[in-house]
């Protein structure tokens, strides 16, 4: 069995008095893609934000064998955890290239010399970003922004990459392209925790899946099994549905 990368036990998150996530437990193995699907407002983004330390939470989060209890966001980044949030949080008044370089900030502090090379890798992955390297991030199109967000995350060479709806607002063809890129990342040794509205595509590229409903994990299993589960088919995949976005 593969090595455990992330173990989450009984995670609870509240916004004030409103409980948005209760008792969520999940695991991610090294070298796998795990997807979390669920309806709007189920608590998917809440889950990722809590794992990154952006939101306070109760419960235990263990990453690479270390307890993440009191660890700041920056130390989590330094330990190889990386989040592309739903809001992307790009530096819109800075150039595409600056955004990417800043993605490697922790590596730079460590004295890593391979940053230029990573930049070239990202540019090979997303040639559009290279064409727009000196343009402000805020002036990019929606799709280019998603690429930049993903590229900036890759610049940190994460061990576990957490993606919150990377295909948000993209044309179907580009959705395919982005998800294809993501499934290719696995072969470079990055593990991925993926949130997708496009449940069919998410289950296609992932190894294991969780269904989150009303702040609780309702179902889990290997992606191929989940894709055949009648309940999942009815609620998330649609009847004989195509590739349309949820």
């Amino acid at each position, binding site marked *: 069995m593969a090595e455990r990368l992330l173990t989450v036990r009984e995670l609870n998150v509240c916004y004030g008095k409103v409980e948005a996530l209760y008792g969520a437990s999940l695991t991610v193995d090294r070298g796998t893609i795990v997807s979390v699907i669920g309806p709007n407002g189920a608590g998917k983004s809440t889950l990722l934000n809590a794992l*990154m330390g*952006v939101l306070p939470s109760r419960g235990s989060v263990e990453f690479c064998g270390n307890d993440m209890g*009191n660890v*700041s*966001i*920056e130390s989590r*980044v*330094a330990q190889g955890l*990386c*989040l592309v*949030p739903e*809001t992307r*949080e*790009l*530096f*819109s*008044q*800075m150039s595409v290239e*600056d955004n990417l*370089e*800043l*993605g490697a*900030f*922790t590596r*730079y*502090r460590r004295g890593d010399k391979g940053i230029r090379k990573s930049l070239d890798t990202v540019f090979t992955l997303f040639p559009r970003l290279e064409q727009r390297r000196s343009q402000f991030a805020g002036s990019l199109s929606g799709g280019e922004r998603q690429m930049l967000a993903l590229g*900036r995350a890759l610049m*940190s060479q994460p061990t576990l990459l957490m993606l919150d709806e990377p295909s948000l607002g993209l044309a179907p063809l580009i959705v395919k392209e982005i998800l294809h890129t993501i499934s290719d990342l696995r072969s470079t040794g990055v593990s991925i925790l993926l949130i997708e509205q496009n449940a069919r595509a998410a289950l296609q590229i992932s190894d294991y899946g969780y269904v989150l409903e009303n702040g609780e994990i309702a179902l889990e299993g290997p992606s191929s099994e989940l894709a055949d589960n009648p309940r999942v088919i009815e609620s998330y995949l649609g009847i004989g549905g195509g590739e349309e976005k949820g």
Partner: protein
Amino acid sequence: MDFQTILILAQDAITNSAIYALLALALILVFGVTRVIFVAQGEFVSYGALTLASLQTGVMPGTVWLLLILAFIAACMETARLLVSGARHKLPGALATILAPPLAIAALVKICTPLHLHLGWQLILTMLIVIPLGPLIYRVAFRPLADATVLVLLIAAVAVHFVLVGLGLLFFGAEGVRTPPFSDAQFTFANLNVSGQSLCVYATTIVFVAIMAWFFNKTLYGKALRAVAFNRNGARLVGITPHLAGTFSFALASAIGCLSGLLIGPITTLYYDSGFLIGLKGFVGAIVGGMASYPIAAAGALMVGFSESFSSFWLSGYKDVVVFTMIIPVLLWRSLTTAHYEEEE
């Protein structure tokens, strides 16, 4: 008013503007990175000049005590923080980084004060004393409030201002000082006398601005600071620690303040409370730049310098009134011409 007078007033205006522009730059940076409207910025100006004056007379400057006290408070706070978060093993290292530099500086000052060193060494000593005050003030007064609103941070900044002015009176007394110029040279260009000190002000400002432009646009640490100012959440997600950015921006604020004090100390008499008004004029420049744009803030600083200088000729008693009244039409104009963004909190 003849041409000669205009030239003299303009020279005066440019010298002051250079200082206001530097202060505006620090204010904008501190505000962007930490959301603190640092009204106490000007205190570093008077502290710089007064510390140098003390060293000149062979007296141990009171700012050294302030440095030690702040370091002690910061060390206590850090101890409490580490004990609460259960990171006891980090304590010795953390205490050493907080306490060692101020103690070393205090020892150095103690040794050097009676030696009546050359002015250049005394300038360096002054900066060694005053610059660490910025990061320490941040550590003690603002870092615990990192998540507070802009208003709460402003109130804290006002409190810091009053404390620093009060301590200034305690340390240095009510006497004004004039520090020696960096150079006694006098130059004459087309009937206009330009002092070496004024040239020093121009040169230092230009060099400083050039270094800052390089730092913020070309180095990753500079870009990281700008990133914090633009998008705090995004910056944390790429691993930039906000309090390190805050520490650095306050170090820059105290460095710029201290340098400004040393530059204008030979030109104007500075008292323990003169810094506030000087800082406020830099603040007017920063506001003209919307607390965000460095070039517009520099233009604003020029505007402040010129209106101050020329109104001192026509309405000398009201020159500050003129400067601060000007802010109203400027704000009105800016509010009409710039788009509004909801403040993200």
